[in-house]
């Protein structure tokens, strides 16, 4: 494959966390401009892989290239947005105060704060203190923060946990709109029904890629109608 088409290229990545070999040497490609779903059960290495792509993870060996640079290089801090699983915003500030602060840190263009609030559907809560929001709302504040700098690659760790179906649908729609504008999204989930909404899938189990490709291709390969079954078939395969 042409390297220029890949937003993320991971080769032979080995990561140990807390004494455990979480990623034993993994190869992963993420196509530029795609919504790529990273699926797998808890403990399969999704978060560790995402942390390595963002460049916040100490790795043992291997190479992680992101948008043509080494992961974590200073130039990428403007071009990559990262949302951790737990909302990482200031609980004692309002939604807007949080976003204004991070907007100044990334030097976002004027008006970006209000746009980001709209994308995540928090218009009615903009002046509410984050501590008083629900879990799903706080994680949307965290997501809005990552949108401020208009990154070329968005790495989202389980962004839809705790959201009602309508919001989940709206967010996935927003992800595809971003991708249509040229942004690459790497989105993790442990819910299989979200897999259908991705352009590409990476199925991860015990630190290894058990399958990758479009949802249709994976279904075809395993001969099963839904992805849950496909995943089970792949997980049981030797």
């Amino acid at each position, binding site marked *: 494959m042409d390297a220029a088409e890949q937003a993320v290229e991971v080769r032979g990545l080995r990561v140990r*966390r*807390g004494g455990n070999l979480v990623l034993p040497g993994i190869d992963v490609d993420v196509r530029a401009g795609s919504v790529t779903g990273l699926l797998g059960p808890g403990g399969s290495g999704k978060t560790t892989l995402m942390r390595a792509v*963002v*460049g*916040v*993870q*100490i790795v043992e060996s291997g190479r992680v290239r992101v948008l043509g640079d080494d992961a*974590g290089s*200073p130039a990428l*801090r*403007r071009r*990559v947005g*990262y949302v*951790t699983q*737990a*909302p*990482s*915003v*200031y*609980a*004692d*500030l309002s939604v807007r*105060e949080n976003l204004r*602060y*991070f907007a*100044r*840190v*990334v*030097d976002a263009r004027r008006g970006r704060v209000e746009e980001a609030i709209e994308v995540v559907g928090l218009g009615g809560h903009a002046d509410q*203190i984050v501590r008083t929001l629900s879990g799903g709302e706080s994680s949307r504040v965290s997501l809005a*923060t990552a949108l401020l*700098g208009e990154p070329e690659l968005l790495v989202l760790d389980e962004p839809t946990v705790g959201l009602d179906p309508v919001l989940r649908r709206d967010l996935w729609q927003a992800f595809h709109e971003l991708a249509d504008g040229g942004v690459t999204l790497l989105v993790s989930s442990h819910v299989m029904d979200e897999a259908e909404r991705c352009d590409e899938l990476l199925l991860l189990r015990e630190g290894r890629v058990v399958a990758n490709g479009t949802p249709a291709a994976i279904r075809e390969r395993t001969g099963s109608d839904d992805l849950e079954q496909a995943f089970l078939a792949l997980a049981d395969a030797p």
Partner: protein
Amino acid sequence: MTARATLATAARVLRQLRRDHRTLGLILLVPAVLLTLFKYVFDSQEGTFDRIGGPLVGLFPFISMFLVTSIAMLRERTSGTLERLMSMPLAKLDLLLGYALAFALAATCQAGITAAVGFGLLGLDSEGAIWLVVLLAVANAVLGMALGLLLSAFATSEFQAVQFMPAVVIPQILLGGLLVPRGQMAPALEWASDALPLTYAYDALARTTLRGDVDGRLWLDVAVVAGCIAVALALGAATLRRRTP
């Protein structure tokens, strides 16, 4: 680093502080209340309050800012906001100076109130200028902030972080010369006190309030405190990791 990110950080820290009315109230008023308590506790001992009161005005901010910063930084570490900031185009110095600026401002208000109460209401006298006492208080606040930031890296919970206060601050107060002149200490203790930054902070305050010696020796004390701030900030910056295990 950029002035934009540094100032934004300072403004954010101040906004968080302002939002927490009780903490703000405690920061601003507790030193003045304690100073009043000192006066009446030592009422029967002629001259004691006059000797320790002035320097205390400048030492309270060290203690407050040490505590506030160690908890605030610990929260940044545990809430994931530090990791987020470290993955953003923010220089470590932006974060450190942002905190320093915010707490220096808070310390100016705190020391101003304490000085007004001490020198105004409680009848303390200062040989040197009172603005110099406030200025030294702000330097001590930044020293406390820098040490708190550094030590927060060694705490994994708020319980641990608050325990650093007695462990780090009280020995420095005991050995610094405030309670017992350093010359009257056992040699080993005097050497230990030579190695502690608060000794120089106290010496500068004592020279200003008690003797009015605004001379080279005072500026040497200030230089030592400034050096300790720089070292603590550099070590603190080293504990802010872009990559973590």
